[in-house]
């Protein structure tokens, strides 16, 4: 039967059939199809009622003495004195705070993998640096699942991470969005259905790396040229496929993995995450997006976002920033601590990000530092507002705002029960829930994942 089908069709139809069988290639999202689908299964879970907590819902509201009912991995109700259905686990949380699970849109966990060794100096899995256009790499192909940073992030309340390639190439490659639960293979933590991102980088990193090697690009202008060339070529590539699919052209274009990624960005199917610090650099990339017709989802690092808040708001671009990293290179000289607060106050979308497994364990404290710095210049930010920088705003940047980032009925039960105000240095994540399962419990060693790497070594955790 297959034989007769093939005999009746031209190569073009064969391609379409194969593509359909693979669940790829033949639809509108041709260029963003995922041949490596998620095999994620939630951890064992039980319906739960959390009672009497101070709830920050992630959308800007605060409820004191509130309850949350979780059923089948979803939030079903948030309110005061909810009745406990038969058989649910009840967690008394009076005096404690509950927030949505923290979302880190800028992690290198699994590729900037602990422990670092001399091997990482020469051949790191953070970036594929051999080509300034590495749009065709998928960072999920480099994830070391035994990186202890994953369990540290979970213990700090992080439930979703976007792992991005590094910022050496101009086009860094495709990101992957993962759940922060332990597993042995990457497909088991891939967030089902999450859009991919493309990392691109402007400024000092690409030009310094390639410039030192005598390779293109050696300047900011060269980086922009690389981007224009890349997206123009991708436009041509996409239109060749369009012509072929409409029958206008008879021969199928040869697959080009770089162009596929960039074409998917042009289609809006892959979200563009831009590593960029300076206001003038960001404005240049925005101008480029207008010229070439792509949308920028977020600027990452964006230390000078505060200088162009109206522009960022007008273009609906989020910024993912630190609280206090500055000065380590020229383009970070003008970083200020209230950066996120200025963006927020101007109606923009502010996100606290990590870029480091150390910062990735305390994004709540990153926000606390911004709150303190903002207060000094007369901007008061209540906790229910600041928590958005760690929850609903990053959810939006990942295209997952209808699934995570807020404590609302129907959303995934990704949440953190904090021992106190999450913006206090003294607070701990007591319990961390991912899709309704308690993936981490500070008071229960059986619910504290330990990576294979750490096994069989003298204990680094627990009582000695």
């Amino acid at each position, binding site marked *: 039967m297959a034989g007769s089908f093939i005999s009746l069709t031209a190569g073009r139809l064969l391609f379409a059939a194969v593509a359909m069988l693979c669940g790829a290639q033949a639809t509108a999202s041709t260029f963003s199809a995922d041949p490596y689908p998620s095999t994620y299964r939630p951890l064992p879970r039980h319906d739960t009622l959390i009672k009497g907590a101070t709830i920050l819902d992630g959308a800007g509201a605060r409820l004191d003495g509130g309850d949350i009912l979780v059923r089948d991995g979803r939030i079903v109700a948030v309110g005061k004195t909810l009745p406990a259905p038969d058989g649910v686990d009840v967690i008394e949380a009076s005096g404690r705070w509950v927030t949505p699970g923290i979302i880190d849109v800028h992690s290198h966990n699994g590729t900037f993998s602990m422990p670092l060794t001399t091997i990482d100096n020469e051949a790191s899995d953070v970036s594929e640096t051999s080509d300034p256009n590495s749009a065709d790499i998928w960072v999920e192909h480099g994830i070391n699942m035994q990186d202890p940073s994953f369990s540290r992030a979970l213990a700090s309340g992080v439930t979703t991470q976007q792992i991005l390639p590094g910022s050496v190439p101009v086009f860094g490659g495709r990101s992957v969005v993962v759940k922060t639960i332990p597993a042995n293979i990457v497909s088991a933590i891939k967030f089902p259905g999450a859009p991919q991102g493309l990392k691109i980088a402007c400024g000092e990193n690409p030009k310094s790396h390639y410039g030192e090697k005598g390779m293109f690009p050696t300047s900011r202008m060269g980086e922009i040229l690389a981007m224009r060339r890349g997206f123009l070529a991708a436009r041509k590539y996409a239109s060749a496929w369009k012509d072929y699919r409409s029958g206008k052209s008879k021969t199928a274009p040869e697959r080009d993995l770089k162009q596929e990624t960039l074409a998917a960005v042009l289609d809006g199917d892959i979200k563009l995450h831009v590593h960029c610090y300076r206001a003038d650099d960001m404005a240049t990339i925005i101008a480029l997006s207008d010229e070439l017709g792509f949308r920028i989802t977020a600027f990452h690092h964006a230390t000078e976002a505060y200088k162009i808040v109206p522009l960022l708001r007008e273009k609906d671009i989020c910024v993912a920033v630190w609280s*206090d990293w500055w000065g380590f290179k020229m383009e970070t000289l003008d970083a200020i601590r209230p950066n996120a607060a200025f963006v927020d106050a101007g109606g923009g979308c502010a996100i606290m990000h990590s870029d480091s497994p150390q910062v990735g364990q305390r994004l709540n404290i990153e926000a606390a530092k911004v709150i*303190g710095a903002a207060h000094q210049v007369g901007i008061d930010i209540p906790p229910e507002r600041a928590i958005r920088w760690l929850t609903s705003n990053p959810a939006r940047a990942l295209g997952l705002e209808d699934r995570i980032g807020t404590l609302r009925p129907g959303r995934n039960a990704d949440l953190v029960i904090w021992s106190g105000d999450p913006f206090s240095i*003294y607070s701990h994540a007591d319990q961390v829930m991912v899709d309704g399962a308690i993936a981490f419990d500070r008071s229960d060693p059986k619910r504290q994942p330990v990576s294979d790497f750490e096994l069989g070594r*003298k204990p*680094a*955790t627990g009582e000695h």
Partner: protein
Amino acid sequence: MRKAMKLCALALALSFGIASLLSLSARAETVAIVGGTAYTMTGDDPVENATIIIRDGRIDAVGAGLAPPADARVIDAKGRIITPGLMAGGTQLGLLEVGAAENSVDTSSNMDTLGAAFDVQYAINPNSTLIDLARADGLTRAMSFPGSAAAPFSGLGAIIRLDSGADIVERAKAGMFARSGGGHASAVGGSRSGGWVLLRNALDEARRYKKRSGPGAPRDQLLNHLDAEALQPVLKRAVPLAIWAERESDIRQAVRLGRDYDISVIIMGGAEAWRAADLLAASDTPVILDPFVNLPSDFDQIGARLDNAALLQKAGVRIALAASGWGLKISYNAGLGMREAAGIAVANGLPYIEGLRAMTTGSAQIWGIADHYGSIAAGKDADLVIWSGDPLEPMSTVITSFIRGEEMALETRQGLLAKRYAPQHANDAWPAAYK
């Protein structure tokens, strides 16, 4: 002509006089801080409703409800916390501006001729913007240490005072720094063992150098006269040898080195120091640690854990803090980074007062300036900070800072940028550069 020159000289003398008078008057100002909660660091409990009297740059008196002197400027600190000005156990303040711009970085020397003799004191830049920020975050003193380019010695660090003067070096040659561990093995032939051989040999050669009266060294001596001389105060225990050591085995080697050569050793880093806590306590070897470290960042830090500070303090080890934040806090956020680090240590079992101690009397004692700095007690330098809230909470900020009795300006580049670009200016017609 001559008259004019005389006038000029007089004017010059006068202006010098006025200038020195001004700075003197700032330092000589009598101030009474009243009504606050003062952690004096002389006991475990704070003094409530404290009056702190500053006179001639020093603490004149401190006590609950003391009446301010008639000539004092009174600062109402009701509802505020007051601590001594903080001291970072290790930074590179004054030695660098932009990490990636090598010509603005003076942290280290990679010359073969400058090992132990490399001395940071001549490079300290009091006008560094990093110092302004650290001061605005509550730091008043810091150890500024040399980097790691040479091995095993990095050279001599200096204690700096974060005041507004042109000469902020309080004590040069305050610590001799050396490196151990896997990260530096390549500089000593590929094995950390080579580093310990070289360290021991250096101390041996320095000791022989002292004994020799005439010039000239044995032909195969490795140390040149600069390094041999630089190590003399270490052999006399006048200067401590601060050894970066993360792995337990290196920490124990450092303690053994101190014992074998009868020198004073300080452990820098000490990610696995908790594993040798009893030895460190018994040998009175202090640890200047980074409480952020809880990941096995390399094979030397497999045992890193958040309660390292708590376990060390409980065992009786003296501690201070050098919060690296992988290089992004140790100098660029030297004040806030250290406070955040202390907060992490306290959140993980270190008693609150010990968290404050690590940032004040702890580093003062380890670096040898506790005779005049570190606590709020009569006769001590008036280094004081009035806080908006708990100084260990990263949300808290500095309201007022004094160094040796002089109230510090807290303006920073960051603060000016924040003012210039505050949200209410977003739609101004004139470009920001006119503000």
